[in-house]
């Protein structure tokens, strides 16, 4: 009888001991360090950013699955995915600038001023610079231009616009003025980007007296990139 009593008490006490130890372990594992409102805010921002990223990736998964389904359907129905792949290639070519394209857009003609120089004025004030062209291109991109060309040279992601004396070199071809910039996109926004008071182009026209002529057209034709792309340094990363 006494042994049972003793053992029960010992067991009870060890239950208490184990309970408190585990409680302490659990309690201690949480971090109670001081957190400022800014840290909290930063962390919340980071969390929402991560969530957004997750959503983007999920969307990517969905679109990739759709693509896969498309391939599989093509395989089942026609026995080959050749057609789908050819479609893909055409889309890629369209985006990367290896097809002639046509669409609504704007044509801008940019040439040097024809007025006389003032006494002692820098003649640089009267000519079109590479920077002017670059800024106009950027304005057009902001206004939603999808495809751009200058004097028939398709603008690719690698196209340079470089000052070479009184001329400008684009895609390794050198052109004198006038520069004809073509852009395909929503003609209204493109036109607004050029003509809006205070925009870079209107400044060129009003302040610097350069000659800027533009017209909107429903059928702007832009030819494909004429040169060829040599890839020497890049290698695609697998599994990204």
């Amino acid at each position, binding site marked *: 009888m006494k042994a049972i*009593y*003793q*053992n*029960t*008490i*010992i*067991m*009870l*006490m*060890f*239950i*208490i*001991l*184990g*309970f*408190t*130890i*585990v*409680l*302490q*372990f*659990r*309690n*201690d594992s*949480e971090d*109670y360090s001081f957190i400022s409102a800014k840290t909290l805010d930063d962390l919340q921002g980071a969390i929402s950013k991560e969530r957004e990223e997750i959503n983007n990736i999920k969307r990517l998964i969905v679109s990739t699955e759709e693509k896969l389904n498309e391939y599989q359907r093509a395989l089942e129905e026609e026995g080959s995915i050749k057609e789908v792949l050819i479609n893909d290639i055409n889309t890629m070519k369209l985006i990367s600038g290896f097809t002639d394209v046509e669409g609504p857009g704007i044509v801008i003609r940019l040439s040097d001023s024809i007025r006389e120089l003032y006494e002692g004025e820098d003649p640089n004030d009267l000519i079109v610079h590479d920077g002017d062209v670059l800024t106009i291109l950027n304005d057009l991109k902001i206004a939603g231009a999808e495809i751009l060309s200058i004097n028939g040279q398709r603008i690719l992601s690698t196209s340079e616009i470089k000052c070479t004396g009184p001329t400008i070199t684009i895609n390794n071809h050198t052109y004198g003025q006038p520069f004809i910039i073509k852009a395909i996109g929503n003609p209204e926004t493109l036109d607004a980007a050029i003509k809006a008071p205070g925009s870079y182009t209107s400044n060129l026209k009003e302040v610097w007296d350069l000659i800027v002529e533009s017209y909107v057209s429903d059928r702007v034709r832009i030819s494909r990139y004429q040169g060829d792309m040599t890839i020497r340094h890049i290698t695609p990363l697998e599994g990204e």
Partner: protein
Amino acid sequence: MLFAIIGLMLGIFLGLYLPVTYPATYSLYISVAILAALDSVFGALRSSIENKFNTEIFVSGFFGNAILAGILAYIGDRLGVPLYYAAIFAFGGRLFQNFAIIRRHLLERLRSR
């Protein structure tokens, strides 16, 4: 021994699954109390090996030491003197002492076999 291990297991199990929490400010006191309780347990182990085990002494030492250590730490906090060091040194030192004696007893038992 067996009952002790079963009890410990049960306690750990309960601690893991019961949703009990306490404010983090009490964490230190409970740590010191646990140290005191552990000291009592080692003392009990030693005395049981020496066949001098007494339940009353064990129980009173277990709770008494734990509560005293906790209160000491609390008072130390109030006074601005880290009194819990006293508990840590006293019980920690005794814990190792007890363990050393237990070790010796066990080794002797092994040798005499």
